[in-house]
């Protein structure tokens, strides 16, 4: 319940934060919403010597809409995304995903950036961010770079972010009117995390699937795009049979996780069932 001792900095600018991160290197941890980091520190699973609290950097928070996309500051909380009228209107699947996270208190504090960097396989954001083909903007000692969502999640709790980098923004293209999305999740009863979560964006022209993007979390040790489903359904009529056949591929080639909460077979099954239900719901 009691974290180990650490030195605490609360920079007010990104540059200051980056400098601190460079100075303290591996000893330091960035603190955003704290809702993944502080619990691990309380159990002393993490004992960073230096904490760099970035929440006082104002420019990293909030959502704006420049030229056809949403720019989401990394420090934007789950609740802000859940309740933002702009987000609800432009990319409702983001609000829906945010609303599925944990509980009210967690959503009030936890940030989208923190969740993405933490890369918990059972976190909700990755499926949706993958399905949306978002771009992740990061800043480091050598300046800024953009990482594609599909390149970002590498393995269990590991991303393409370098230790001295900070995730600053998430860029999401606003889908066209004929694209709709939905996020379906089975809650792990204890933690509230996703036992399995499936995010689907379906672009249709009439009865035909022009494009479908399917992101899946909770099944494998890292969130993934169910490309088998996507290629199977693209260009096909959105009939019940076609949807079912495509959804069958939701866990193809995936090494599903085993733990006390669910078997690999069950997780794979959920991916398929939710893919099927999500697509069917969007197609109807």
């Amino acid at each position, binding site marked *: 319940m*009691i974290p180990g001792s650490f030195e605490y900095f609360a920079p007010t600018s990104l540059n200051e934060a980056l400098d601190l991160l460079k100075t303290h290197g591996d000893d330091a941890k960035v603190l955003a919403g704290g809702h993944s980091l502080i619990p691990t520190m309380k159990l*002393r699973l993490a004992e960073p010597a230096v904490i760099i609290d970035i929440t006082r950097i104002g420019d990293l928070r909030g959502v704006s809409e420049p030229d056809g996309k949403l720019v989401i500051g990394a420090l934007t909380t789950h609740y802000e995304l859940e309740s933002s009228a702009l987000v609800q209107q432009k990319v409702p699947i983001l609000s829906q995903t945010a609303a599925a996270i944990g509980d009210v208190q967690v959503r009030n504090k936890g940030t989208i950036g923190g969740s993405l960097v933490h890369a918990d396989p059972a976190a909700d954001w990755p499926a949706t961010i993958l399905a949306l083909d978002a771009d992740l903007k990061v800043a480091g000692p050598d300046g800024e770079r953009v990482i594609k969502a599909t390149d970002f999640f590498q393995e269990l709790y590991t991303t393409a972010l370098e230790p001295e980098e900070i995730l600053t923004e998430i860029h999401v293209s606003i889908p066209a009117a004929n694209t709709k999305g939905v996020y379906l999740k089975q809650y*792990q*009863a*204890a933690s509230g995390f996703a036992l399995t979560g499936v995010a689907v964006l379906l672009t249709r022209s009439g009865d035909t699937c022009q494009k479908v993007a399917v992101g899946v979390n909770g099944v494998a040790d890292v969130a993934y795009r169910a490309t088998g489903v996507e290629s199977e359904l693209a260009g096909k009529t959105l009939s019940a049979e076609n949807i079912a056949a495509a959804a069958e591929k939701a866990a193809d080639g995936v090494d599903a996780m085993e733990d*006390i909460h669910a078997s690999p077979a*069950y997780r794979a*099954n959920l991916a398929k069932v939710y893919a099927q239900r999500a697509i069917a719901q969007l197609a109807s």
Partner: protein
Amino acid sequence: MTAVAGPSRMIGAPIKRREDPRLIQGLSHYVDDIKLVDTLHCTFLRSDYAHAEIKSIDTAAAKDLPGVVTVITGKDIEGKVGDVPCGADLPGLKVPDHPALSIGRVRFVGEPIAAVVATDSYIARDALDLIEVDYEELPTVVDPEKAIEAGSPLIYEEFGDNIGFTMPLEAGDADAAFAEADHVVSGRFVNQRLIPNAMEPRGVLAQYLPGDGSLTVWSSTQVPHGLKTNLGLIVDIPEHLVRVIAPEVGGAFGSKLNVYPEEIVVSYLAIQLCKPVKWIEKRTENFTTTIHGRDQINYVEIAVKNDGTITALRAKTIADIGASYQLLTPLIPTLTNLMIVGGYKIQNVKVELIGALTNKMATDAYRGAGRPEATYIIERIVSMAAKQLGMDPKDIRFKNFPQPEEFPLEIATGITFDSGNYQASLNKALEIVNYDEQRAQQAELRQQGKYMGIGLCTYVEICAFGPSAGVPGGGWESATVRVERTGKVTVLSGVSPHGQGQETSFAQIIGDEFGVDIDDIIIVHGDTGRQPQGIGTFGSRATAVGGTAMVVAAGQVKEKMAKIAAHLMEANPDDLVFENGQIFVGGSPDQAVEFATVAGEAHTAANLPPDTDPGLEATHFFEPSNFTFPFGAHVAVVEVDIDTGEIDIQRYVAVDDIGNIINPLLVNGQVHGGIAQGLGQALYEGAVYDENGQLLTGTFMDYAIPKATHLPRFESDHTVTPSPVNPLGVKGVGEAGTIASTPCMVNAVVDALSPLGITQIDMPMTPNRVWQAIQDAKEGGNG
């Protein structure tokens, strides 16, 4: 705020709780809220291994940390304090040593090894990391069925095996009945291990005053009196110098019905250091080292005639008791034996019970304690029998119920059910849920490929513990009723409520007794310094036993007041009525004297009737003549998502007969909470240890206790069959919901999936488990 006292009786009224104002404003005091000057903070180092030899413990670095006052290990207190006590005494019970800090050997993960005391809790925590323990790992056994096999690693070498006790029970001639049976229905059931998880973890604060040699201990406990007596003996302070206070207690459910190592060590440290010492349990400690519940494997069969009559039951139960005994550990599964025939007239019984030692935390009393297991066994097997015979599950129950006029009814296992009308409660539940319509709808939905299920559970439980012969340390309860000089009433009760609301319900009873306003009554409990004798709150006993003690004591005071009032009014004491704060002559209310005036006279003592001592106080120790046996019928309606295994609870109807009802608001609260915990067992909860004895469900991240979204709205109703065992006619309600809801839910889910040929799903029925059962059934069906 004032409830109206008066001719309208308070008993039976939904009076809102008097304990609430402090609780809803954050003004109450749980142990951790009590701050004494100069308090030191204690933390425990606990075993990381389920079974290991401790080669050495190096505490030097920890002791050197600034702020650390002392670090002690088992060796430091060996011979200076007594063992952690076990109050159970079964024939042939093998009782191992149980030091408060382990010495030489650890036998479960979380076992306390050393205690650190520091000036603040952060330093104490840091010091833990500086203690070095050299372990030599030993083979572990966590599966109770493997544990009792020959050749299994031994928890205690001196015992030669891992069988802590056995307990056979036989009545009638079960083997003969089986030989003549038309049908034999059998099953293997698992009552999984549960973790009680009261929301307030345990906590202890101990203060020793060297001047007078007194020890005061604040502990989050259900049994302050038992703790006082035991602690005195264990840390060697005469009992009359020990005071235990159970302040506000944040739930317990049996998990605080114990004497724990931490209570012993913290008391010892307070005595040694002559300063207050506090230990507050962390949730992770609560998971590993506060007692667990259930954990039985039951092999059961019943002999049934073609008409549904059940003639015999045979069972073998392996109860996993863990690595050591806590206060009542071995007794819990014996209650399963006693209640195994449920509410049915089964005359021939043969059961075998084996207590298996394993490398896990001890099991002990968790809400229901032994009866949920029995109810699960009998309610599952009876429902399975109905299915096998093609009977409606309600009909097989009606067939085997005793008739109301047969009570009091001695059953095969030797106990006597006090009163009952099982038909009435089942009929009422069926009516509320609209049973026939539900069955019709089920048939319709099945046509559409939907899986709706209806589950029944008719239960009877044993509570109001109880005659002293059946409770270690005594089953009586005591109360002192005192009318103060100003007419205020003080009731000191030996029970120790921790959420049940007896500060309210007891005041209702006394209010009716004395005819005074409820706000003129105070119920004091949980402090051995104020009410020196008592047993405590557990086994749904507080009102039936503790309430009765209080009523008898009040009756004695009332008699004396009547005598004094009669003397003042020159009336006959037998004619007097106590109402509205007055004592008056029945039929002529003008001839009256204030209740408070009589109280004053009793203390001024200048004008008392002859042969009357001053003062108004009586103490009564009530010894009940029998247990009570609440019963009832629950019905659940569910729909199962066949693709995901998810269960949607559509209706939950509970009809409980708990005898007379003192406060319906509180009763509903107990019923709801009980059902929630029972559904927790059915659907969500289960302690999982890996084969090395590591607890994999050691936090709320992995062990699911029901959340608000997990539960439906419950429909709770009652039938009332008063208990003849106590003058209040009450039976007890603390555990009924828990006992009934578990099998009810499993019966509903199995019923939903019965078209697939599914006959049993083990608990917790997680979506994964249900889905797997569906897959297995489909494969079996195809193959």
